[in-house]
């Protein structure tokens, strides 16, 4: 990659696997459990966090030398809350349908620990460009896990993907339902999201032994 130095590109690729915010840092679990019953919601949440974390990291990084350390957490909270509210208002005025879809996520974005975690751990100590890359990388790492979990929960729980039936009709008994297959309603419950995240963590650590803590 000519555009990014080796160190910079690591900022994007690391969070995708070996330093994933969900499976390794165990941040953002709350929203990963709450909204992954549908693939579409997972995708929307991923995009929203990508946007907020990318911009928020840059803003915090620009302010890093003037933020008083005693009140830095509150300052971070205000930055992310203001950012999210302004985006929400603009969407409500000019893209009302989209804002209806996003309304549920607004609160979840502000309280997402990944955002505060990256502000605190990275943006406060690094230059804007690196902070931007770090934000994008972590948001993508978050989105990847959400999409994997959303895929399995929607497929096994409702037999659909993006709301489109892929396994046949459970009431008319067509497709795989003709052979006695049933949707697993338990997949729609938050505990199953935790179990799927657990399985991902298991697979990841069994492939890369360095990740196992003693």
């Amino acid at each position, binding site marked *: 990659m000519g555009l990014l130095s080796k160190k910079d590109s690591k900022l994007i690729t690391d969070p995708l696997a070996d330093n994933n915010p969900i499976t390794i840092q165990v941040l953002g679990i709350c929203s990963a459990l*709450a*909204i*992954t*019953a*549908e693939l*579409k*919601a997972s995708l929307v949440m991923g995009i929203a966090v990508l946007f907020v974390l990318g911009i928020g990291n840059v803003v915090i990084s620009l302010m890093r*030398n*003037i*933020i*008083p*350390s*005693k*009140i830095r957490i*509150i*300052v971070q909270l*205000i930055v992310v809350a*203001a950012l999210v*509210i*302004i985006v929400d*208002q*603009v969407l*409500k*005025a*000019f893209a*009302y349908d989209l804002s209806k879809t996003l*309304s*549920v996520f607004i*609160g979840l974005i502000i309280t997402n620990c990944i955002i505060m975690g990256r502000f605190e751990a990275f943006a406060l100590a690094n230059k804007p460009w690196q902070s931007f890359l770090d934000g994008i990388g972590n948001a993508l790492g978050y989105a990847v896990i959400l999409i994997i979990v959303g895929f399995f*929960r*929607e497929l096994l*729980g*409702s037999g659909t993907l993006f*709301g489109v039936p892929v396994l046949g009709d459970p*009431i008319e008994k067509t497709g795989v339902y003709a052979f006695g297959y049933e949707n697993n*309603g338990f997949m*729609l*419950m938050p505990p199953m999201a935790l179990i799927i995240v657990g399985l991902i963590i298991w697979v990841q650590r069994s492939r890369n032994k360095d990740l196992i803590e003693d």
Partner: protein
Amino acid sequence: MAINTDKNSYTIFFAIAMVVVVGSLLAFTASTLRPNIDENKRMEKQQNILYAMGINANEGSGDINFISTDKVAEAFTNNVLEQIVLEVKDGNVLKEFSRDEFMNSKAQGAGKEPYLIDVKKEQTKAKNGESRFLPLFKGSQNGKTVYVAAVRGKGLWDAIWGYIALDESMVVQGAFFDHAGETPGLGANIKQRYFMDDFKGEKLLTEEGVFKGIKVAKGNNDPVNNDKDDYEVDALAGATITGDGVSAMIKNDLKLYLPYFKNLKNNNN
């Protein structure tokens, strides 16, 4: 930059400056965008009422599609034949307003269209023992007169609301539900078409005219809702509290309209 960011005076200065900057930024955004947002909300209400009446842009059996925003004003004028406002207290209708009477009455400020009545505020009024206004929209569906009533209640996380189209004997002809913050994939599915469509044909009253409501029932062995006489629709998996909220809102709010419909029936006989 050599600012001593640890000094108390600096911390206080920074906090004040931050509040002023962020506060004015948010106030500025909110006030500039307000007219656009209000207009969007107004059109959404019209779309919702029309949707309950069966006037929509649905295709096949997929998502719900409202009539588009550029056509909604015209459709609303053409299809909503009458807007009625009922002033009720303790189960009695005190007064019935037509649209013009209501807009001239200054009950809610002059020139306020009945469909813009804030149901939440009216509910608070009723709770405080005052009389409240109930909006009702008269329209026609396949040559039959339908009445659209507004309902509002609590889901799991936040408010849920809807519009229910009824015929003269309070049989549901169409329903629309929306929510402020139910869980996507679970409670938020009350906004799905398959859930709303289930309500069509359900009865609210028993043969004797007693108000029974419609229950969002778990495991009623009738997932496609063939039985229209059971006062039940099939619940959503994983959304018990939202479903209970829908049952409660139908029971509490539609009951308020009962005197009007009884009157209607008596006048027709």
